[in-house]
């Protein structure tokens, strides 16, 4: 291997090892440490000057206490469950909202499609924080939505929307919608519409043709879209902290609180390790799915 090739491969490789892999090893190590009133606020610290015996004591002081704590204190395991639940249902809602839009664009006249797709992608380029923020004014107790509903007379008193799980669902569906529409549209667009015409000619009903042809053809796009929403939604911090209430304990928010408010770094680290372990399953499934898709093309 010549020197140029070596540089080409190993510059980005070492960068990722130094700033992606090693940080995780540090997180794992701190998750096995004990909190302490010191700077940095955990013990033991690695001290190479002490020689082999110091390294020995260092390892003997590491334990799984923080993980036991996560299991016994119901704040944590409930937060994991809440995160998975919210991520799951918002994925379903996003799919329900996204599919008709993707389908509509795929069926739109050819010359309109690039423009419609640009309109889907445009919000993705604008700030995520601002898109979440835009819902605060709408969902507030004296916000635009409540005022509107009161004005047309559907409700007598304002609905409590902001700082509830409903607001979190709306926030996730709104901000992650492009991630769901893009892969589904990519699949639907490739679909040969003569297949549906053939099915209809052969006596299939419209809905029957949809279930037996359109949906299976869009399956890999649906799977990819669901993964792209579900995986990041579990660890979401911004949406639950701005739109959710004090009872919306999603794990990203708990981790943030442990670190910044409680200053308990070992617990924050073990929360991160467990979260990563939970995410490993969908991440690996997603990567397999993507590789299979690439092979098919």
């Amino acid at each position, binding site marked *: 291997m010549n020197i140029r090739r070596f540089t080409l491969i190993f510059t980005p490789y070492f960068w990722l090892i130094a700033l992606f892999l090693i940080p995780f090893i540090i997180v794992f190590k701190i998750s096995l440490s004990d909190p302490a009133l010191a700077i940095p606020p955990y013990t033991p610290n690695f001290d190479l000057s002490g020689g082999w015996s110091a390294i020995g004591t260092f390892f003997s002081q590491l334990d799984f206490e923080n993980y036991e704590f996560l299991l016994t204190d119901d704040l944590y395991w409930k937060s994991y469950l809440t995160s998975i639940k919210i991520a799951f249902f918002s994925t379903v809602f996003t799919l329900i909202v996204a599919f008709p839009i993707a389908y509509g664009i795929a069926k739109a006249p050819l010359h309109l499609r690039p423009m419609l797709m640009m309109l889907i992608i445009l919000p993705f380029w604008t700030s995520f924080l601002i898109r979440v*923020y835009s819902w605060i004014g709408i969902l*507030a107790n004296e916000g635009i939505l409540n005022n509107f509903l009161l004005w047309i007379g559907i409700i007598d008193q304002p609905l409590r929307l902001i700082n509830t799980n409903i607001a979190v669902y709306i926030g996730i569906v709104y901000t992650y919608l492009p991630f769901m529409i893009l892969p589904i549209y990519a699949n639907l667009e490739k679909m040969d519409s003569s297949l549906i015409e053939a099915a209809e000619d052969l006596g299939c009903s419209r809905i029957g043709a949809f279930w037996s042809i359109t949906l299976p053809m869009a399956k890999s796009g649906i799977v990819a879209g669901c993964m792209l929403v579900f995986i990041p939604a579990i660890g979401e911090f911004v949406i639950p902290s701005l739109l959710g209430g004090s009872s919306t304990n999603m794990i990203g928010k708990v981790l943030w609180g442990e670190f910044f408010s409680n200053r308990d770094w070992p617990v924050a680290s073990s929360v991160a390790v467990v979260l990563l372990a939970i995410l490993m399953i969908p991440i690996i499934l997603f990567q397999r799915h993507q590789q299979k898709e690439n092979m098919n093309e």
Partner: protein
Amino acid sequence: MNNRSLSWFNTTSLVLGFAFLYLPMLILIIYSFNSSKLVTVWAGFSTKWYGELFQDEQFMQAAWVTLKVGFFSATAATVLGTMAAYALVRTKKFTGRALFSGMIFAPLVMPEVITGLSLLLLFIAIDLDRGILTITLAHITFSMCFVSVVVSSRLTSFDKSLEEAALDLGCTPFDAFKSVVLPIIMPAVASGWLLAFTLSLDDLVIASFTAGPSSTTLPIKIYSSIRLGVSPQINALSTIMIGIVTVFVITASIISKQSIKKYESEKIRANL
């Protein structure tokens, strides 16, 4: 079927879908011109919040920090991401390739709280003072993976024989890359840079973990002021940001459309 006009069902779902996507932002823009501080009451047209925004030293300072971090991190991430993409697409076998491609893929789906926490603990372990440098390092690390994905999809689709021809004709690998590969993948490299820049401008969580007290970025500043509720100044700032992005995306799409047309007409001429 393609050229048939839309059915009522498709039209309705498109109209509702786009209303859902754009109404919240439209409301945000309208209320940035409201002279009342309350979001619920319309008290007449005014641009005073824009004036207040530009006089707010803290916002201007934060915007400057954000642009600096965005520029430097996007540039470095584009170089590293393009290198990574080229290495992974062109070299099928080397030691640790699986780990490498795994590390390129993982940050794309990693929750930001984990990335932020782990980088902060690294910076503390090596005793690096938190500030603009640490935010930039953190942003390079996750954006380079996005750049690499964008660039490698372009690299896999282009004709490898062009590069081989250049090598056969006596080009060094570096020259072949510079004069054959780079011009072809340039649109992907450019959109990779834009993506990295946008991701950096947008990031709240990782920046909050890796920023020091003197290096507040715009998202950190926005977040701390909207935690207290809706503020018309933030509406004004959002309107400016939405405006810039809209102009930018529309210009970029017109330019790319023209370059595609130019490419097509050249191809037709070459065939004649």
